[in-house]
């Protein structure tokens, strides 16, 4: 069979395909209101969730400091941290989470803008790869602000029990717990992101290579 014959065959088959699958106006109207199942849609959904969760938590943390609720919190936590230390901890958490929320918010806007644009295939693949890489980095690094902090908090609670903070060898222990938490979170997050998006990213890189050859 020659290529021209293939072209004719394609036309015949394409005609059959089109007439067999033809949908009407109402069906098309129904489809466009559905939610996308693409990886990009999943990335956007995760970002949206992070904007809300980290944003709300940030507001709660900062409000706790602003309205002076750290005194009563310090009391209820067995006084192992005084009100000032608690205020510092909540401020750091509030600002960190707020930053993550804002970062996710702007990334979400950027992806939405990209979705509305129509670029040539090569540029589209480059953008999608960039979005996926960004989602992987965000998933790996954004949690590094909070998770090790929780490890350190637990370490602090353990080493200082009901005592007020003192600058001694226990600070080193807490720092070691923080570093351990940081390493653990980093590798866990990286593995999870690789598992979730790694294959997609590799495929896109393969397509780009194909378009550059």
């Amino acid at each position, binding site marked *: *069979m020659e*290529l021209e014959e293939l072209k004719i065959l394609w036309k015949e*088959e394409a005609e059959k395909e089109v007439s067999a699958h033809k949908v009407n106006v109402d069906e098309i109207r129904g489809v466009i209101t*559905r939610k996308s*199942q693409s990886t990009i849609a999943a990335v956007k959904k995760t970002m949206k969730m992070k904007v809300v969760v980290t944003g709300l938590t940030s507001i709660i943390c900062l409000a706790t400091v602003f309205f002076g609720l750290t005194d009563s919190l310090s009391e209820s936590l067995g006084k192992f941290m005084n009100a000032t230390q608690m205020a510092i901890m909540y401020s750091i958490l509030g600002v960190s989470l707020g930053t993550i929320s804002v970062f996710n918010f702007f990334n979400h806007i950027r992806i939405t803008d990209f*979705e*509305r644009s129509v670029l040539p*295939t090569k540029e589209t693949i480059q953008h999608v790869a960039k979005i996926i890489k960004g989602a992987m980095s965000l998933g790996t690094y954004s949690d590094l602000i909070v998770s090790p902090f929780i490890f350190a908090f637990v370490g602090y609670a353990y080493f200082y029990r009901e005592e007020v903070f003192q600058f001694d060898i226990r600070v080193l222990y807490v720092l070691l717990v923080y570093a351990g938490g940081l390493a653990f979170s980093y590798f866990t997050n990286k593995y999870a992101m690789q598992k979730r998006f790694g294959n*997609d990213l590799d495929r896109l890189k393969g397509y780009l290579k194909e378009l550059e050859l």
Partner: protein
Amino acid sequence: MSEQEFVQKVTESQGIVHKVCGMYCDNEEDKKDLFQEILIQLWKSYPSFRGDSKFSSWMYRVSLNVAISNLRKSKTKKEDSTLPESFDSISKESDEQSLSLEKGLLRDAIEQLNEIEKGIMVLYLEEKPNDEIDEIMGITQNHVRVKMTRIRTKLKETLNPG
């Protein structure tokens, strides 16, 4: 720019989407999913269509971009679909139908191509000129020619073995 106008235009030109789905998917379930994804993306990006290019070129560009780069989530559960009962009935019919020799050859030929080559191939089979192909794919005309030569060689080997 109204929904009515969009739906009307897409209904008239839906053949483009079906052809792209036919090139990239070999089963009805995947075709149905891809068809939905493409329509959703067409609607999202419709405000950016300003008529600088032909509506059909714009549709090919969006459809191929979705087919190639919008990696679809692997399904663990199927959502209820508002789409096309026609797809389901076809699925059953297709399963029952045995492939003709020529149709089988066409399918074999397509399967030899990677996702990028399939994109170029669908445009070639639809007799799009090289400048339109390079505009859609984002590569140079020279590159399109090189790709077409490779595709032809690959296809000839499949279509005329031995």
